[in-house]
């Protein structure tokens, strides 16, 4: 069932935005990003039966539509420093097979270029594994991800992988 993920604080909301599969979330790995946070006040009567606690995400799951265009919604702007490629990769690539550089080579590394050092993450759990470094994965996500949360979503992670044709 689909829902709107509301968070307990602006900080938790921004953290969730940074973990979304949008271009800005990928950019947040290596550059300052600007986030707008909507503060919404919902009466329990208005959301009765349509909201559950998401304890593991510090917030609520709202199973109904939500208006953010009214004058009661308070908007604040936040500038966030880059989270860094290692931290980004640890979250976004956490379900992928990982090896240390030296046990594999980033397939996008150009001959003579600086080595793509550190950890490498695989595309899938197949025997014929292809590995890429955090910078290349991040570049891929920036190219493949949608600009907006309001566009048609990618259906599955397999859709992401099938688009991994960077050279």
């Amino acid at each position, binding site marked *: 069932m689909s829902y709107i993920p509301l*968070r307990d604080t602006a900080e938790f909301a921004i953290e969730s935005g940074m973990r979304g599969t949008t271009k800005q979330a990928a950019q947040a790995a290596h550059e300052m990003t600007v986030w707008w*946070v909507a503060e919404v006040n919902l009466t329990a009567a208005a959301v*009765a039966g349509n909201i559950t606690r998401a304890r593991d995400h510090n917030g609520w799951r709202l199973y109904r539509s939500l208006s953010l265009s009214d004058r009661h919604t308070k908007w604040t702007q936040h500038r966030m420093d880059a989270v860094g490629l290692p931290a980004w990769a640890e979250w976004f690539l956490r379900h992928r097979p990982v090896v240390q550089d030296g046990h594999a080579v980033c397939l996008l590394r150009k001959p003579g270029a600086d080595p793509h050092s550190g950890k490498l993450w695989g595309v899938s759990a197949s025997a014929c594994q292809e590995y890429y470094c955090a910078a290349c994965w991040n570049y891929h996500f920036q190219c493949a991800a949608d600009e*907006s949360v309001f566009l048609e*979503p990618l259906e599955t992670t397999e859709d992401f992988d099938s688009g991994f044709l960077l050279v």
Partner: protein
Amino acid sequence: MVACVSLGGRTCKSDSWAFCAWCWVSAASPMGPVWADDNQIYYCGGCWNQYNEKHPKATYTAYLAFSTADARLAQNMTEIAATQPLFGQ
């Protein structure tokens, strides 16, 4: 002592002198911490759902983050639907 984070502006306590008003778990126990309602009565995380069911006038204050472009879209939409999987987790 359990880490204490103020949520939605609610005061948090994680010391051994604070207890949940309903289930009496100590704020310092693994079931803690506890958070204050508008009357400065404290509840553990597990009792907050029941609290909200029993207090129909209670208000949820919650937050949602957008990029600048999406914020402009959201401000101009009558309402946003709960069908946007690209929201972060």
